[in-house]
């Protein structure tokens, strides 16, 4: 019995940092409508800054002073990020800022690497709290007890701030109606900066507080962000008590999981989340969001049109160029083009649900990696012929998308996004922890194509035909009645329902279709590389696709293709450099700020302006 209590207390203590980070994320989202992906990075910064400060400042006062200062420092960094990057793009489509925050993640990762090095840092013990207290005979670290005591105080302080102070009133008002608050004479820019700073400071405190238990390393940012999203989804977006309850729930669950089911700690969390969401789709204490409010991604103003003669000629020329490429290009160019085509198909499949369907998925890698793993597992365990295994990739990914979609489709906007992310983490944790099946980190290797396809040239054409075929199929569907129905459901779900369209069913089919195409890309990928690792299922992979779609431009399918070519090429050149993440992050942020409509959107606007100038010139 005492053992269970000890486990419970460990869980409670772990909840402190998680709650701090989750509440910060929730607060920022509520006011600015930005899902701050860089929140994990701020947490990581908190840990590193905390370690450094604790080395400088002596004693117990120094320890707690260091934690306090860390939060303030991270708050200032958050404010800087908001002023320098985000403030410039508030008028861009709301989820466009996501891409910017991802750029921030990359920049912070490399800056941390530059400043603190690649070595993990052990956090110092809290002075005066080094030992354990015995509770019913079980040792419980003193620091844990302190954390357990601190967390409710933080919750109360935040609750007081939000419900009882003037700042809190502004924050709540802005959460409900941003424009109205602006109309009432509140300086929105500073309110946003303030809230961003506060949320960042909370993440920083979280990072510093957990130091004596966990330390600091460069993987912390991504490790926590998945868990934080689960907490926010379970608790209910924008609810502080909800975040608290969920943080406790998940942390306690983890503590017990580590003790009893060490092989499935990660999966357990997502199972609980799925269970909660079946009963309460908007989380334990969350309220229903007005659909479309932030699910809409820069609704296109003009109808889509089939390509005119110029577009067709251009596309045909491009395809002819790709087909004749092996005649004169170096082998490494062929490899690069294979990577681009695979990635372009993956991005196009995301664009299909995101651009056409208005469903922003944060977890599309589940289907790319899922398809790759499905084929690889068949080959690895049963020696299935490549052709059959390859077919299995889109099939399995499509079925997976159907299953995951069934849960996610019921929600919309940011809840949908978070849930897809959580599910992709579930798939990732399966690949990562089910070692007997997937070999975990070691990945599945020796997955090569059949003899007739083995070799750079045959596989190049194989990829080209299927990849381009997949993209054109998606394009065709966008212009079909089904594609129109999907768009109708995005533009006005109410009108669509009042017109006999079963919006959710259309969306589910679209989601499964997109999953299938992502799976096809995954199948092409695994046989071109000969191996697959859990990294193909990671959040970063999903983000890559998101970035590509946003960078290229949400409004056209070509955007995804152009974005994929751009990112793959840039990455190809940059990864040779030591601090390539920093550069890539800066490139992404620059594109976001300079071209808020994406590359294709901006080019198109320029072209339109030129054409207009041409027409006006003769007069």
């Amino acid at each position: 019995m005492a053992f269970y209590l000890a486990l419970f207390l460990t869980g409670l203590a772990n909840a402190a940092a998680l709650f701090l980070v989750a509440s910060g994320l929730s607060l920022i989202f509520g006011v600015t409508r930005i899902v701050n992906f860089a929140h994990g990075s701020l947490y990581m910064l908190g840990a590193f800054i905390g370690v450094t400060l604790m080395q400088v400042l002596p004693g117990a006062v120094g320890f707690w002073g260091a934690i306090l200062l860390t939060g303030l420092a991270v708050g200032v960094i958050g404010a800087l990020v908001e002023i320098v990057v985000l403030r410039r793009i508030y008028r861009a489509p709301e989820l466009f800022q996501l891409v910017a925050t991802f750029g921030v993640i990359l920049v912070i990762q490399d800056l941390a690497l530059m400043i603190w090095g690649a070595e993990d840092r052990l956090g110092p013990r809290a002075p005066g709290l080094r030992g354990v207290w015995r509770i019913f005979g079980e040792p419980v670290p003193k620091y844990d007890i302190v954390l357990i005591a601190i967390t409710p105080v933080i919750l109360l302080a935040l609750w007081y701030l939000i419900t009882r102070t003037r700042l809190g009133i502004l924050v709540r008002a802005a959460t409900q109606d941003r424009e109205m608050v602006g109309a009432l004479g509140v300086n929105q820019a500073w309110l946003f900066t303030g809230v961003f700073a506060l949320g960042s400071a909370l993440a920083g405190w979280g990072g510093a507080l957990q130091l004596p238990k966990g330390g600091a390393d460069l993987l912390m940012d991504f490790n926590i962000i998945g868990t934080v999203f689960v907490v926010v989804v379970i608790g209910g977006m924008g609810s502080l008590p909800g975040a608290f309850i969920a943080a406790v729930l998940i942390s306690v669950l983890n503590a017990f999981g580590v003790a009893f089911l060490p092989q499935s700690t990660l999966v357990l969390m997502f199972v609980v989340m799925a269970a909660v969401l079946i009963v309460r789709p908007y989380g334990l204490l969350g309220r229903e969001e007005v659909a479309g409010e932030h699910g809409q991604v820069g609704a296109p103003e003009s109808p889509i049109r089939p390509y005119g003669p110029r577009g067709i000629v251009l596309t045909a020329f491009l395809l002819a160029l790709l087909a004749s490429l092996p005649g004169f290009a170096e082998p490494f160019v062929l490899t690069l083009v294979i990577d681009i085509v695979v990635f372009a198909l993956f991005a196009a499949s995301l664009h299909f649900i995101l651009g056409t369907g208005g469903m922003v998925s944060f977890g599309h890698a589940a289907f790319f990696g899922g398809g790759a793993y499905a084929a690889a597992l068949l080959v690895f365990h049963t020696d299935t012929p490549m052709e059959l295994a390859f077919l299995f990739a889109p099939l399995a990914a499509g079925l997976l998308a159907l299953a995951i979609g069934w849960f996610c489709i019921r929600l919309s906007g940011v809840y949908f996004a978070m849930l897809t992310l959580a599910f992709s983490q579930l798939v990732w944790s399966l690949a990562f922890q089910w070692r007997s099946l997937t070999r975990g980190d070691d990945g599945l290797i020796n997955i090569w194509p059949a003899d007739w396809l083995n070799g750079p040239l045959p596989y190049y054409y194989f990829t080209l035909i299927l990849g381009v075929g997949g993209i054109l199929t998606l394009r065709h569907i966008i212009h079909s009645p089904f594609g129109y129905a999907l768009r109708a459901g995005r533009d006005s779900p109410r009108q669509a329902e009042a017109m006999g369209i079963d919006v959710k069913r259309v969306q589910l089919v679209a989601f499964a279709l997109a999953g299938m195409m992502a799976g096809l890309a995954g199948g092409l990928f695994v046989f071109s590389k000969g191996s697959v690792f859990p990294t193909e299922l990671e959040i970063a992979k999903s983000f890559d696709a998101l970035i590509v779609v946003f960078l290229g431009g949400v409004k056209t399918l070509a955007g995804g293709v152009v974005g994929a070519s751009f990112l793959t090429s840039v990455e190809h050149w940059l990864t040779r450099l030591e601090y390539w993440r920093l550069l890539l992050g800066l490139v992404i942020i620059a594109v976001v700020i300079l071209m808020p409509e994406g590359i294709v959107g901006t080019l198109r606007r320029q072209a339109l302006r030129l054409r207009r100038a041409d027409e006006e010139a003769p007069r």
Partner: protein
Amino acid sequence: MTEILRAERLRKSYDGFLAVDGVSFSVRAGELKALIGPNGAGKSTCFNMLTGQLKPTAGEVYLRGTRITGKPPREIWRMGVGRTFQITGTYRSMSVIENVQMALISHHRRLFSFGLRAWKLYREEALEFLRTVSLEDQADRPCSVLAYGDLKRLELAIALCHRPRLLLMDEPTAGMAPSARIELMQLVADIVRDQGLSVLFTEHDMDVVFAHAHHIMVLNRGKLIADGTAEEVRSDPKVQEVYLGGGTLFKEAGRA
């Protein structure tokens, strides 16, 4: 005249607040009927319960004798009930005619076709509907640049696509210029006469109501306080009390 729609003791409460409190009425075939009442009387709530956007707390809705209470909007639409909304909900990323084509695609049950080109489908038929509301000149303009009054007419064209037997219009002329209002309601009245369909509409403009409605119902604080011809409603003391000071409006409308 046969009865098309019947509502029986419809009730909707929000946390104890009764938005609609035991409302019963019927709409007959070929009838143009108005539902009026002050702001917050429960008109839109009533409409939303009839077409499935809201589930009633209690009460029943029958369409030609078939119980449709609580059915989703799309099923009620398929049973031949059209609907326009107070705030128009057209598809902003489509052209005017594509909005109509979308309704036709749904009506002809082609929603899950993947091979066809949507903009080629039912174009002629869609043009015909646009002609009914005199929008054929603007067929290929993006929906997002349409003037408000034109949007309202487009909504009407869309609502007619599945040849409904009953059309519910929530404030069809709200936000329009006075002359355009009369024009639009005249159009609706013509359609009612030519196609023999029934229309139930809510409206704040009494000129429009008394000029066109065959029958008028008055809703106040969730309760139906009058249901009859224009003359009966106008002389009803309860109605005059609700529209305190609005009595002159009625008389002017009557004289006009």
